[in-house]
């Protein structure tokens, strides 16, 4: 064009996505809510992985955390309470080119959506799931959650909840075909980011439980979780999550754990005294149902018609 030779033109990368390419609107979560931290970390992950926004889908259910897709400038699906998993699996099944994330809360995942959740683990599609576990129903104003500790005072249990809580890590690790189970916390940004990144890069269904602060309804618990650093231990291993130096310095308790050892992972998940942050279990070889779902994509119209005709032949009179 205009006689300018091609080799005078600088080669720029096709498009470089900045954080602002992933941001949309102002998040309407309470000040001090852990959801803000995860949103920032996820946007950072998208930029670091340079995920094209049009090829990225955030699927959520209902609850505070499930508003998440509205604050991402990607495709999103803010669907029904407890039903993010089937939708996300349906999105992924025939669209291997899409990056699919599930954003869910403790009520959404572990109560109303428990059936779909455990089967999503079993399907092991290449989906990154982030469970925002704040142990309380926030959006509907403080009802007991399936992960609330015994004695949690809520509007549905004014004298304290009575049932032992669901342990999402234990449940995930108990499910057939589990392939990535990790835990992190919203107030440990370096570890949070490293865990999300490891989950995204895992070839399969990454289940990441994020211990969340609900500053509005769970103040004392938040205080206890964020100040008592002895109750937290960082899992370390060459095949595990590699957090930043700051995290390792801030949390003195470390525990070596090989993420290929599912029995050890289950024991750690059972520990009621200590919350372990890190990768509990990973199996990169687990069967992937999304690969099965996408194995016969892209038939031409001629191929489709001739296949149906061949079947009709069997029914011909």
């Amino acid at each position: 064009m205009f006689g300018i030779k091609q080799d005078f033109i600088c080669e720029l990368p096709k498009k470089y996505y900045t954080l602002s390419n992933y941001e949309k609107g102002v998040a309407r979560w309470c000040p001090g809510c852990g959801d803000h931290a995860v949103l920032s970390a996820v946007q950072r992950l998208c930029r670091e992985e340079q995920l094209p926004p049009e090829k990225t889908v955030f699927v959520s259910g209902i609850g505070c955390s499930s508003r998440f897709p509205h604050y991402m400038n990607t495709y999103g699906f803010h669907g029904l309470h407890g039903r993010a998993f089937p939708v996300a699996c349906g999105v992924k099944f025939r669209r291997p080119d899409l990056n699919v994330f599930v954003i869910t809360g403790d009520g959404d995942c572990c109560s109303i959506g428990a059936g779909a959740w455990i089967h999503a683990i079993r399907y092991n599609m290449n989906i990154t799931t982030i469970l925002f576990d704040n142990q309380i129903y926030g959006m509907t104003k403080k009802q007991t959650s399936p992960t609330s500790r015994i004695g949690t005072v809520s509007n549905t249990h004014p004298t304290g909840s009575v049932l032992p809580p669901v342990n999402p890590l234990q449940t995930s690790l108990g499910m057939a075909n589990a392939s990535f189970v990790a835990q992190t916390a919203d107030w440990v940004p370096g570890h949070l980011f490293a865990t999300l990144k490891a989950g995204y890069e895992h070839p399969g269904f990454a289940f990441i439980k994020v211990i969340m602060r609900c500053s509005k309804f769970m103040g004392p618990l938040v205080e206890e979780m964020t100040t008592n650093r002895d109750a937290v231990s960082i899992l370390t291993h060459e095949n595990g999550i590699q957090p930043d130096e700051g995290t390792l310095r801030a949390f003195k308790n470390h525990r070596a754990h090989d993420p290929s050892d599912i029995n050890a992972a289950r024991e750690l998940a059972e520990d009621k005294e200590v919350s372990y942050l890190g990768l509990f279990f990973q199996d990169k070889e687990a069967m992937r149902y999304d690969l099965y779902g996408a194995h016969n994509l892209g038939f031409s119209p001629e191929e489709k018609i001739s296949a149906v005709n061949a079947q009709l032949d069997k029914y011909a009179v």
Partner: protein
Amino acid sequence: MKISAIVNQFKANFMEDGNGSLAAASPQTSDRLVLKEHILEIVSDSGEGAQKAGQSFGAVSAKMGNGVWTVEIIPADIQPPPRTKESASGIRIRFGSEKITNAGDEADVLVAFNEIVPYTRIEQNVYREGTIVLIENKWATDESRDIRQSYATAIEDFKSRGFVVYEIPMEEECLRLTPNPKKGKNMWVLGMLSHIYDRDLDKAAAQIEYTFRSKSKAVVDSNLQLLQAGYDWARENLSLRYRIPSIEASQELVVMNGNEALSFGIQAAGIELCSMYPITPATSTSHHLAECIQSSGGIIHQAEDEIAAVGFAIGASYAGKTSVTITSGPGLALKTEFLGLAVMAEVPLVVIDVQRGGPSTGLPTKVEQSDLLAVLYGQPGDSPKVVLAPSTIEECFHFVILARKIAESFRMPVILLSDANLATGVQPFPRPELREEWLSPPVDQSPWKEGVTAYDWDEKTGLSQRPVPGQAGGEYTLTGLAHSSAAKVTYLPEINQKTAALRSRKLATFGRTLKPPRIHGDEEGRLLIVGWGSTRGAIEEAVDRAREQGGRVSSLHLRFLSPMEPGLKDIFRRFDKVMTIEINYSDSPDDPMITPENRRYAQLAWLLRAQTLVDVDCFSNVHGQPLRPGKIFARIQKELNQ
């Protein structure tokens, strides 16, 4: 269909004249009583294979050019005790020289494997004086005195009912060929019937080969031997010889049941995902799809539950390719919330509901048309959607293709209401010529047009284009919450009012494309029967019968239930009385406590009354049986004579 070497082997072994066809071994067909049509039932204990024999018989008859309708008699239990009424499993085949559109009235011939199982059907009044009963006679000499007694009593009872009884040594004859006649007696019976009705034995053999295609050669051979033996026995021992002339088909036909037709329709529509959870009587569609759909570029997903099945389909639809989920009443109830989401968020989706008896678990294997109001009004909030009801097996095929197109053009769920009668009925229809335009288009991945929102509604029609993940610039977050055209959550009163109106307007827009329904019979008269779904054949046959006797009755059959076909009010005005005939519950006007004010009408009648303000009456029942033309005829006569 290719007939394999084994059949040729049989020709060599059994044929008398060797001139190329097994059927040529039959004696002079001119002795045969020529009939216009016959209704045959085969009833056995569950697991004895009466259905397989009957299906083969129906397929062979269709292949010979007869009009055919078959319907299964299904026990509700998996393994009911033998020789009980609960154990009755079987099939009804109505076949004739002309097109057969329904299962008909009382049977002409019954083949019974024992004396107990017919009583299930006797209770349903499906036999008449003169019905021929061909019954296994081994019970007459059973070692148990009780059984011998039971058999003798039943035979007497059959005779007193006017049945013409032939006692047939089925097991005794089969024992000559197989040590285990329980397996294979059905094929012997197929052979016997093939002689009685002058069926083409080549075609029967080919049918057996196809039925047992996954079994070993020894199994196929054994069944072919039994077929021939039954045929030969009837030739030598039975005087029953009928001939039902066939009409040479002018076009190529295919023969299948409604669920198979749905499966073919799904594939011919280019739908690449069926997400389902097993439920009777819808499941056999999934079985057929499971066998076939991967060859046509699709896949079936058996979900963990009904809710996940529809959610998965919606996810896949959202990501580009309109998907289908298939279910029956109880599953439909579970899918309700997701259907509301598909309406609210305008996700194209095809939902097939093969209706069964309800409420709750109801009558899993039996026919009912009870989900009409549930699909229309089952979702909380206003939830406009398109509802179609195929009325023939052929329409089961074509309506899926139509449903996908409507779903995509109008960006909404389309529900197809089939039922157990269509699901299990087998009928030939012209082989569809598949077209590329029937297939779903490839997923659009071109950049989204700048300045166009995710719900850029056209005010006049309510229509909008849908961005699909992968389209740069079209990013939006779908939500089931009230939302603006930019897909932003909003609770503003005016926006909620307007968006509800736009969603509803799509139905009106679609309704504008429909023509008034065709009237079967005269354009005016004393009585108009209105039906929908699988009852069409029986209604039209009954109307024809009444018209032959001078009755001023016509019928019309609605295929579109939402929106309804236009012009109904004008049509209704031309008749003295309008009455729906449906297979669902309505109060009878003479029931205790029932007044004209509190009477609860059949489901279509409710809708028509509301839509047209015409005092539409209804005649319906929940017997779980296909409606018989004779019953409808009697009701028409009653109405006309009033």
